[in-house]
């Protein structure tokens, strides 16, 4: 873990405190805490159905938390109005678990869609076309530019979705299972791409994954979501050596 003494308030880009979320009697999140520091990759692991997707949806305001505070770049997102929220969201990239490509649009139109509202982020000389091609090149899919999502394989969809997430050059990226459904080679490429982005732009990322290899390569710190709480936080090495059976279950192969 990053030593406590070096952390100033400024370094924190994202913070969740005591988050609660229930669906009827199903208490999914029960006092969940999380802190993401500038420029780090925080990997979140948890069993299927433990509420990882629910948690990051609360982070961008797609779901309303029952209680708790969520601050993104020092702004409490639960208290923002719609236009302020939209501006803040441009700085947050969100990769959906199921890719969520717009299936009535081509790959090009999919990538252009986030630019509709946020073209001001780029200087006038960069055309949408160059941005789209650049983003597709970074995931190695320039050739698919005029295809429809229905013509893509699952892995290609995922890569297009990643390109769409990256196109606004967000400061924080939330990846919901970026490598699930990919072959090991492509998964490795995606992981390297995520690392490259972090270096190049200093992005901070939250990465939800079930893939232990991915976690080892990419994580600066890890967080285990168990029983709706941030059960354990630490580096990969620390957690993999932990003797707690609940933690051990994640690392044994």
């Amino acid at each position, binding site marked *: 873990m990053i030593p406590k003494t070096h952390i100033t308030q400024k370094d924190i880009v994202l913070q969740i405190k005591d988050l609660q979320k229930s669906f009827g009697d199903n208490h999914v999140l029960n006092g969940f805490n999380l802190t993401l520091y500038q420029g780090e990759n925080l990997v979140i692991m948890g069993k299927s159905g433990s509420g990882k997707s629910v948690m990051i949806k609360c982070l961008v305001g797609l779901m309303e938390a029952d209680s708790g505070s969520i601050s993104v770049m020092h702004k409490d997102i639960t208290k923002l109005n719609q236009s302020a929220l*939209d501006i803040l969201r*441009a700085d947050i990239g969100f990769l959906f678990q199921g890719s969520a490509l717009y*299936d009535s649009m081509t790959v090009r139109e999919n990538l252009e869609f*986030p630019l509709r509202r*946020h073209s001001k982020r780029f200087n006038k000389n960069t055309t949408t076309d160059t941005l789209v091609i650049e983003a597709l090149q970074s995931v190695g899919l320039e050739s698919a530019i005029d295809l429809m999502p229905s013509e893509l394989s699952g892995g290609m969809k995922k890569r297009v979705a990643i390109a769409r997430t990256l196109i606004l050059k967000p400061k924080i990226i939330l990846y919901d299972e970026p490598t699930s459904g990919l072959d090991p080679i492509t998964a490795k490429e995606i992981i390297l791409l995520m690392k490259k982005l972090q270096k190049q732009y200093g992005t901070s990322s939250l990465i939800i994954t079930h893939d232990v290899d991915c976690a080892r390569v990419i994580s600066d710190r890890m967080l285990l979501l168990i029983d709706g709480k941030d059960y354990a936080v630490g580096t990969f090495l620390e957690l993999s050596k932990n003797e707690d059976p609940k933690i051990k279950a994640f690392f044994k192969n």
Partner: protein
Amino acid sequence: MAWYGRLKTRKDAFLIEIGELSFFTFRFFKDLFKYPFEFKELARQCYILGNRSLVLVCITGFIIGLVLTLQTRPTLMEFGAVSWMPSMVSISIVREIGPIITALVCAGRIGSGIGAELGSMRVTEQIDAMEVSGTNPFKYLVVTRVLAITLMLPLLVIIGDAVALFGSFIVENTKGNVSFTLYFNQVFDAIEFGDLMPATIKTFFFGLAIGLVGCYKGYYCKKGTAGVGAAANSAVVVASLLLFVIDFIAVFITDIFFDL
């Protein structure tokens, strides 16, 4: 008293749905005048929705005109009033049959299409993706579609009316040797402002109802593919039912103001 409990939950669900639909309608009118206006998407939707139902509207219109004339002919003949045929058919088509049949066809074709489309976008999180990319999905998806069908339905009804009258003319022409000019002269003599105006206003509300119900069902679609099917299905059922309610109210009001 299990049946009573069932009835009660059904009644509650029904009332909740009415409340939600009213709120949805309110939100539509609120977002309608809010910047930014999605003109390009609106034009695209107008084209898609019109294109999707034009052929169907023409076929049903033509057959209705044909059948209506064939069916009423013997009765009118009995009274020696066949010459009244064009006026009678045109009034019933323009006032009632044209709008309601066209609207029902569109509820089946467009309402279910919208319900399924938005439903699957909801289920696959495309609506959420729009939301996080800074585009208001309600404006982009719902407002454009509801507006498109509200604008297109009156046009489709006018086309449907025309085709139905043409179908009726064909019967008159073959059975009674009535010429094209004579037939349509009589038609335009018979139709008055008091027939056309309320009927056209009514179709705007028909369009609004089909669009709102279809979008509402899709937008709040339950998870899973079964949810998409249910959204499409109930969009048609509820919209069709609503059409008749609106029709009843419209005729009631017209009766007062235009003194039929």
